[in-house]
């Protein structure tokens, strides 16, 4: 569960990235966040994975008021949140298997559990057979799937993705989106910021549209552009 109550984010430069945002995303929901560049999509995503704090208003993630939480607790709260980026952010010296394992080691997961869970995660994204490949030996889509396996290996309740298909061709993008949807069906909340008009229009999920830091539309089974934009 994610809840924003009158959230404003003001950067030190004085620019307001988000203005009075209120929204609620339920457990297991799949949400697209759309809008032009600079609309505040990335800031909204960062608030969810606790990289950013609201200047005013309150943010609840998994029922914790993260606007109040002390810094030292943040690592523990992040363990319930998986993150995927446009540029994959895999470690080039590590194999696919090691990249995924890295996420479990970093949170000091029991060593006995690690091997099995890593293989399960790789299997879930369809890359078990490429476990020993290094990132440079993998295609863009495969790299993003490894990143996805890394994001889910600690079994987070929320998965956020910031333009995960931005660097991929349309066909590969579909694979990634389908994987994200599968993950959401298993009960994980998925929030995906995207520019990809085709995907949003085809999947008919909830769409939150931002513009100039404000929510201009929040629609179930939405399209990339709202009705108003379709009218002449």
């Amino acid at each position: 569960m994610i809840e924003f109550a009158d959230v404003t984010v003001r950067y030190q430069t004085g620019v307001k990235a988000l203005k009075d945002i209120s929204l609620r995303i339920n457990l297991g929901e799949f949400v697209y966040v759309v809008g032009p560049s600079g609309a505040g999509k990335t800031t909204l995503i960062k608030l969810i994975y606790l990289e950013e704090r609201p200047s005013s208003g309150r943010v609840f993630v998994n029922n914790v008021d993260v606007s109040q939480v002390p810094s030292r607790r943040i690592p523990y709260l992040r363990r319930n949140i998986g993150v995927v980026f446009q540029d994959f952010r895999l470690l080039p010296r590590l194999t696919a298997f090691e990249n995924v394992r890295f996420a479990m080691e970093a949170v000091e997961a029991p060593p006995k559990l690690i091997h099995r869970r890593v293989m399960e995660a790789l299997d879930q994204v369809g890359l078990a057979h490429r476990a020993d490949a290094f990132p440079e030996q993998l295609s863009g889509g495969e790299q993003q799937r490894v990143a996805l396996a890394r994001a889910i290996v600690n079994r987070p309740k929320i998965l956020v993705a910031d333009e995960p298909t931005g660097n991929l061709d349309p066909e590969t993008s579909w694979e990634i989106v389908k994987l994200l949807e599968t993950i959401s069906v298993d009960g994980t909340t998925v929030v995906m910021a995207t520019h990809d008009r085709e995907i949003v229009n085809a999947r008919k999920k909830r769409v939150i549209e931002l513009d100039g830091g404000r929510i201009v539309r929040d629609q179930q089974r939405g399209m990339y552009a709202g009705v108003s934009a379709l009218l002449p």
Partner: protein
Amino acid sequence: MSAHSFRRHWREALQGFWRNGAMTVAAASAVAVTVLILGFLLALVANTNHLTTEVRGQVTMVAYFKDGVTTQQISALEQQLRSDSKVQEVRYISKAQALQQMKEQLGANSSLLAGMENRNPLPASLQIKPKQTEEVAALSQMLQENPAIEKVNDGGQVVPQITRVTNIVRGVGAALVIALALTSAFLIANTIRLTIYARRHEIEIMRLVGATNGFIRWPFIIQGFLLGLCGAILPIVVLNVGYQYAAQRWGSSLIFSMVSPDALLGPLTIVLLLISIAVGVGGSLTGMRRSLRV
């Protein structure tokens, strides 16, 4: 911390060395130079302290009597000194004894003094050992005021001189060592910063998946610890071997004795190890504070 994480932190720390070889060597060398100079100075100070104590134990004042003083006057002063709390020991040297001593000192040339027995020019004296060197001045003052006393030789000038030299050595040494220690810590901090930079992507991923600050920091703390330790080993060996050699070669032939290697080297090694480790860990913490946003 689990055994698994413990091993992992050490592995990461060692990898940090291989990836920044040149910087690692520079930082460890700086520690080595610091430890070498610090160790040398500490050994020097230990020996000058030793010398001061030795000399202090040997300070003896001599009060010479005027010619023609009576035995009553002499024994009165002797009694007075014996009951004085500042005085450890008093010995009376008669004119005859003084002449005898001089003869012994001259040895083969003692014939120079032949015939002096009848008109002995040497004065009778009291040899006085004060309890504390600091009391020499007061005692000397008191003796000079006594009408039976011709002259006082207070023999205490050596100690302040040694103390002055020791203090200069200490002052200059402390300044030098502090400057070097800061340089070492700075170089270690830089090494850590380079390692952090080389690992920034890993650190970013660790933060994203929820690694604690402690987990992220441990390898760097270990790295600083090892830099301090590695830098200290070579100079400590050099100092141990060098001091043993010096003590063996000159220890007994100098006018004063050196502190024995057994008494000095154990504590010195421990102090140097602790200081270099403190410099290493301190440098590492400084390096992290600036560049590890956690």
